């Protein structure tokens, strides 16, 4: 395990999940507490879907988190709980008190496991094999024996007396004969049992001396009774005979069971060296692998191994699942974080915003003061200025979380998707540490998922096609995040087949969209955002139905963001999503029109220039075009559009500001440029209504409200 992790960590900027452990532990703890409460208040006869779904969600969240962070033992146990709860909520099973008991115990055990992980893997993990087994019995619709095998909770010192027969821990080698059966295939079902119920043990089919009998070699931690209980769903109890492997060998040495060719004693001592000989007192050694039989250890290797195998060895992905040992004890400082309602943080942000405005007002008013007379006050104001800025920065950072939270969900999704599609894909992430507003992170996840899925489904070719095209068999999908000025740019890149300009144009014509061959590439790529547009030859269940890109676009536009596509046929494509760092703060350029001040999002301002009278041409019904470096651009006269009253005609329409949105540009005619500033974006709709061509409002340094122009709407307007 530890080698694995080091190897994974060796690859430079791998995702260091350990920084999120604390969050996971807190959330898992809350979920478990909630689940316990709900379980306790669950009325078995009248349990409604709401309650059962609620409990299911708790287990599901814990499992999801545990799997992400590589706590396989927790994931395993909660997975079992989830299976049971899933059947309950589907009404395939009727809840009973046994189930509640087992679930409560499992919740306790999960807490124990989590506590152990939180402590950096020190100490013993509570045994979960028996819980897992009991849940599986219940999931299969069985009933537990009246007194469930006592779960030996971790004793202060491991001096539990373990008898070889009923031990809940300690692996035994058994030989199981099932038969005679009319249909011996029935017995094969127990192979699946072992496969499905992780933690039950290992099973290998052995050759049988009789056609109507199946023989299995089994290594398990479960007692004979438990095994019989399980088998009962497939074969009748009295047809099963269980023997300890070695005695079997002794009794029938001629049978020649392939697996047990080794002398029994040797098998005991080599393969299970950790297990004491039956009856021998357990040595209370520290760190003794007493619970090696618990599902955690072997499974974790499997998971990690599977990941490493599916992606290229040493790829950044491997770190995701291999992180169990990565918990540095330093992380576990108690109360390293506190969880606070988001509304409180928002209130804080609002108040600090107010403070900044007040401070700006003071600064403005104090400018006229004579520095010689008011020296001390001016020094104080300068301090206030610095402190408020620092304060604002720290308060804003409360809401910021790293992009890795979003990225971490993709390796697994991509792996499943690639194997489903029969493609070979390597997933690379860059800039996971880039921070983004929590509200944005939540909203960006779905569009990104869609884009990554698209890349895998449509972008990356089948391995054979790739080889034929002279590309490496392994396709690469890169997800990167970086700050650029006041925005964050998230890119999804693939080295797949890219998009075909001709194909998109012909598809667009088919759908009756207005297109021409003269359209620029970027305009052509924008076509795929049209509702219902898909160029996929085959509609798969993953994508290709044409729903999606338009939704992606809409969602990102709603966040004040933009989507750009770059593609080269045969070489891949790149989708760049540009988002403001936070919804609450925007870099704006203030422009003056008459006596009024409006703000433009700086991200959409391309350039500004003084108007030359002869550069403006009028076309048709008075709409104007301005020539900017050999390109004609529509002009919007802001004064007319916003019906700005004009009191003095002296300073007049002198400046053009070129803005870009949705891939097109327009020039806005304004009086003057006033400056650039960070502004707190406020919602107009909360107390008033949506105003055309305005996306919001902000409060300027003098306390006045200024409207923020909706560049996308202005560009759309110029098209009509």
């Amino acid at each position, binding site marked *: 395990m530890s080698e694995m992790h080091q190897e994974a960590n060796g690859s430079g900027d791998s995702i260091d999940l350990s920084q999120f452990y604390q969050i996971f532990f807190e959330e898992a703890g809350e979920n478990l507490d909630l689940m316990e409460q709900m379980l306790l208040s669950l009325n078995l006869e009248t349990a409604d879907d709401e309650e059962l779904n609620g409990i299911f969600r708790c287990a599901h969240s814990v499992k999801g988190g545990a799997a992400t962070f590589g706590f396989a033992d927790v994931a395993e146990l909660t997975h079992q709980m989830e299976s049971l709860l899933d059947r309950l909520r589907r009404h395939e099973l009727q809840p009973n008190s046994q189930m509640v008991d087992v679930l409560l115990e499992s919740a306790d055990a999960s807490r124990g496991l989590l506590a152990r992980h939180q402590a950096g893997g020190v100490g013993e993990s509570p045994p979960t094999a028996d819980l897992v087994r009991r849940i599986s019995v219940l999931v299969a619709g069985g009933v537990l024996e009246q007194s469930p095998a006592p779960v030996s909770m971790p004793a202060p010192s491991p001096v539990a007396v373990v008898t070889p027969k009923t031990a809940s821990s300690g692996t035994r080698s058994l030989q199981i004969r099932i038969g005679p059966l009319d249909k011996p295939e029935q017995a094969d079902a127990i192979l699946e049992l072992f496969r499905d119920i992780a933690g039950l043990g290992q099973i290998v089919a052995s050759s049988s001396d009789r056609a109507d009998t199946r023989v299995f070699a089994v290594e398990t931690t479960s007692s004979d009774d438990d095994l019989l209980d399980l088998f009962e769903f497939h074969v009748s109890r009295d047809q099963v005979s269980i023997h300890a492997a070695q005695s079997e060998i002794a009794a029938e040495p001629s049978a020649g069971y392939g697996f047990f060719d080794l002398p029994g004693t040797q098998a005991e001592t080599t393969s299970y060296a950790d297990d004491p000989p039956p009856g021998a007192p357990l040595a209370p050694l520290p760190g003794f692998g007493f619970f090696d039989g618990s599902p955690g250890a072997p499974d974790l290797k499997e998971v990690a191994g599977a990941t490493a195998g599916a992606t290229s060895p040493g790829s950044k992905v491997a770190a995701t699942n291999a992180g169990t040992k990565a918990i540095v004890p330093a992380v576990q400082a108690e109360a390293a974080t506190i969880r606070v309602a988001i509304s409180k943080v928002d209130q804080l942000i609002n108040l600090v915003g107010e403070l900044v405005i007040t401070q700006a007002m003071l600064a403005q008013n104090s400018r006229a003061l004579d520095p010689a007379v008011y020296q001390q006050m001016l020094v104080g104001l300068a301090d206030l200025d610095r402190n408020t800025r620092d304060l604002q920065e720290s308060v804003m950072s409360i809401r910021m979380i790293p992009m890795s939270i979003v990225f971490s969900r993709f390796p697994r999704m991509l792996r499943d998707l690639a194997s489903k599609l029969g493609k070979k894909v390597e997933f690379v992430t860059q800039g996971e540490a880039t921070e983004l507003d929590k509200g944005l992170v939540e909203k960006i996840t779905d569009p990104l998922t869609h884009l990554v899925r698209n890349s895998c489904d449509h972008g990356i070719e089948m391995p054979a096609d790739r080889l034929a095209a002279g590309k490496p068999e392994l396709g690469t999908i890169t997800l990167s995040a970086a700050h650029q000025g006041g925005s964050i740019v998230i890119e999804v890149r693939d080295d797949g087949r890219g998009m075909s300009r001709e194909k998109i144009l012909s598809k667009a014509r088919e759908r009756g969209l207005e297109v021409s061959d003269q359209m620029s590439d970027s305009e052509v790529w924008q076509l795929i955002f049209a509702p219902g547009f898909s160029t996929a030859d085959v509609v798969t269940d993953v994508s290709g139905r044409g729903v999606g890109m338009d939704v992606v676009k809409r969602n990102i536009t709603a966040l004040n963001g933009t989507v750009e596509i770059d593609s080269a046929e045969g070489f891949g494509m790149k989708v760049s999503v540009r988002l403001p760092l936070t919804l609450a703060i925007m870099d704006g350029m203030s422009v003056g029109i008459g006596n009024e001040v409006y703000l433009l999002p700086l991200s959409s301002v391309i350039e500004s220039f003084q108007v030359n009278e002869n550069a403006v041409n009028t076309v048709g019904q008075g709409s104007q075009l301005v020539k900017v470096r050999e390109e004609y651009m529509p002009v919007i006269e802001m004064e007319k559009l916003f019906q700005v009253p004009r009191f003095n005609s002296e300073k007049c329409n002198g400046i053009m500001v070129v803005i870009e949105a949705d891939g097109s540009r327009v020039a806005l005619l304004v009086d003057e440029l006033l400056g650039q500033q960070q502004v707190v974006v406020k919602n107009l709709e909360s107390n*008033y209504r949506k105003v*055309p061509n305005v996306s919001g409002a902000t*409060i300027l340094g003098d306390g006045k409200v200024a*409207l923020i122009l909706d560049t996308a709407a202005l560009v759309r307007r110029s098209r009509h």
Partner: protein
Amino acid sequence: MMEQMDRPGTPAVREYLTFRLGGEEYGIDILKVQEIRGYEAPTRIAQAPAFIKGVTNLRGTIVPIVDLRLKLGCEHAHYTASTVVVILNLNGRIVGVVVDSVSDVMALPSDSLRPAPEVHGAIDQDAVLGLGALGERMLILLDIDKLMSGLDMALSSETEMTAA
């Protein structure tokens, strides 16, 4: 008056904030009133009805300002030192209304309300609760919620739907 309120069986007494618009005196439910401020020129909003003066900054909240005098068709709507803005909280939405001056807060028992006669005017009949008589003075009691959520005020959520 307090005794009246406490005694069951007697008609409920409600308190009204009274203000003047031109020569008329109006009253609105005091519980809808959040605060009263002096008038400051708000930020104009293009293509809004004339009685919506714009939006202003109320301690960080963007609040629309409605001039009730324009809405109710008063002859003069001058902005003087005594012009005030009554900030209303209507089911969580904050709106400021401009009035000529605020008079006082009056308690009126509900049985002293007279139904308003049918008159043609700028106010919807629905938005008038009734007329309150207090000695010589006549108060026009407004249902400010109804008045403000009238379609042209664009303040209710339904309007937003149709406007969008």
